[in-house]
């Protein structure tokens, strides 16, 4: 939660088109190390697209995405190397169904970072303990509830020791009684100093956990500020309109 002032991700003039449809119409933004930034807004505003441009799951149509000083949109760089430092958690979990819970976590560190198996498993068990899943270590994901799968997904991303975690509507596909558990995990991460960018509809959560809130509308950042500013004293008419509908 501490904003160190160091630039982690810089986005300059980011535009994204899908065919004729302009989804992102020019975004300039900086994410600083230690920041927790929430992104809210109506559907179709481009929130997820913007998030996915940050680890290049979507390729920008124009503009730059500079991660730790490197333009990751450049074709010449090894994108996998940089992606290892950016963790992502998806709305639909995307856990690997054919691997056990433990294997889900250890597979990438052992394959890509050449971490020895035993070491990877020890670290994985520690992470599972933190989210209360250590008993499920040798189960297959089909035996887990949605909330448990998402916690697994978070821990899986954390195992790569990333510098930033991206969350794409992490609780939108969860039954209400599981949302709280997952939000708690994210909160723990944030309070532990992890840089987080969270696209969410959980306004209460965004308000309590964020350092900054970005309101996106029609492919642009319409307004941004501290949670208090955005939620209590919104300026932009679209922000006011949106918040009146959801709060």
């Amino acid at each position, binding site marked *: 939660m501490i904003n160190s002032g160091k630039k982690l991700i810089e986005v300059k003039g980011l535009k994204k088109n899908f065919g004729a449809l302009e989804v992102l119409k020019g975004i300039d933004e900086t994410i600083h190390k230690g920041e927790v930034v929430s992104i809210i807004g109506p559907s179709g505003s481009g929130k997820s697209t913007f998030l996915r441009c940050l*680890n290049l*799951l979507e390729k920008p149509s124009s503009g730059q995405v500079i991660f730790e000083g490197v333009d990751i949109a450049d074709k010449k760089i090894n994108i*996998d*190397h*940089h*992606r*290892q*430092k*950016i*963790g*992502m958690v*998806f709305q*639909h*979990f*995307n*856990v*690997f*169904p*054919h691997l056990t819970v433990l294997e889900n976590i250890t*597979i*990438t560190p052992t*394959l*890509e970072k050449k971490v020895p198996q035993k070491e990877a498993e020890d670290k994985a068990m520690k992470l599972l303990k933190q989210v209360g899943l250590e008993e499920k270590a040798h189960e*297959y994901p*089909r035996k887990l509830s949605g909330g448990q799968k998402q916690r697994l*997904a978070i821990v*899986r*991303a954390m195992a*790569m020791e990333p510098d930033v975690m991206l969350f794409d509507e992490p609780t939108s596909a969860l039954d209400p009684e599981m949302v709280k558990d997952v939000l708690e995990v994210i909160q723990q991460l944030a309070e532990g100093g992890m840089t987080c960018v969270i696209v969410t509809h959980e306004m209460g959560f965004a308000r309590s956990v964020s350092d900054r809130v970005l309101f996106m509308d029609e492919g642009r950042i319409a307004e941004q500020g501290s949670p208090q500013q955005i939620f209590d004293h919104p300026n932009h008419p679209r922000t006011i309109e949106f918040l009146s509908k959801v709060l």
Partner: protein
Amino acid sequence: MRKMKNMLILAVMIFSLWITTGLSLSAEETKPTSGNPDNRLEEILQRGKLIVATSPDFAPQEFIDDSKKGQAQYVGSDIMMAQYIADQLGVELEIQAMDFAMVLSSVDLGESDMAISGFGWKEDREISFELSDGFNKTGEAACQGLLIRRADAEQFPTLESFDGKLIAAQAGSLQENYVQTQLPQATLETITSMDIGILSLTTNKVDALASDCDVAKGYASKDGSLMLADARFDTSKEDQHDGNVLAVKKGEKELIAAINEIIEKINEEGLYEQWKNEAKVQAKKLGIEFDGSEDVIVETKAPGVFDVFVENYDIFLNGLLETLKLAAITVFFGTIFGALIAIIKLSKNPLLRFLTAVYVEVLRGTPILVQLYIFRFFLPMAFPWLNLSKYACVVIALVFNSSAYVAEIIRSGIQAVDKGQSEAAKSLGMSNRHMMMKIILPQAVKNILPALGNEFVTMIKETSLASTFYIGELMYTRTLLMSTKFYAWQPLIIIAAIYFVVTFVLSKGVQYMEKRLSVSD
């Protein structure tokens, strides 16, 4: 999952051993050298072998003795004549059996030297081939008549009584000639093979089937509801073009002259009648009767489906095993090729992607039968040094065809894996190769395996097309039993039943496999 994988690997290993012991890839048949076209006779003498094409579904002239294997199974008066000709030329004889429709083209393409298969002289045939002088035209051997339903016997006392009736005759045969010239008021229905003629007759689609008297008697001896009509064709004209002829490639003057010399000898010495009598005796041993005079009503009821099955269950079993073997070989190699094609199709090179796309589209978009014909005839012409057997050509064609379908199965199996899986793997920083090998492919296999199983089941049915080329799988047993035992329709029902049972059981197996695989979802 691991246990299934091990079982699968074991099955593949056992299977590979089994099929490689049974593959007859190089030609048992001699490939005629494509030498100087006007000197076929020289070629034959040099080669030391006369290659004769025939369709052995015509007792007593050419038929199959299924108690023998290889060349010895082809018997009949025409076969004996071919042997005599070969002996006179001082060479060995090789018989190539095929569908009647392909016999003449085989000579035209240069695949065989001579065609003998109950042909009659025809003007348009004379234009495209060198036809020999006539043989098999004297005495009672020249009896040509009409096979009718016994129930209609009283309707047809004379030839004239057939006016306005529908008469079937095999396309290009002597009998077709007779119908056209001697029954101009009747309607001719050309058929491609005798068994279709029999079926048409017994199902009331035609009124009569023009046939050699002996052949007709043979069929009648097996099915008491049929009989040889009293009315006969007039074969008394002593004409150079009477009787049967054989054919060689157009332009081979030396060859046809040599053959005609031999035929003159045969006709003078009455050899063909001797051969025919011998052939009838041989046929009798196989249960085919020719000697029943028309006066004696042969009241044998055609055996039912069950009886035919019980009598010949070993033939059907062998045919089924051959079918399964053929289908298994096809899908096995087709999968290997298909996987290769699928990988190449993912290449960054646009030319490679284009070529493999064309490959897949063409092989999936054209009928398998057409592909079989093309591979069967063009492969040996294009790569004579490979010395490919007929079986190998057919297998290669089926493998190529299967590979195109497998490539699509693999592609769509991979694409069916949820997009989120590759996104998760990418976002973790997994390399493309690791993502494919560890995340995507293991999950694609769940989609691919059942589809491959279905491809195997489909192939079992498609291999029936190989019977066209006299490859001895299940469908071919129909041709076999037709020519050796004159069973017109019973084998068809048995064969259909066998195919059904096999494909049904295997389909259930595939469904079960699908269920087991999807448990982890």
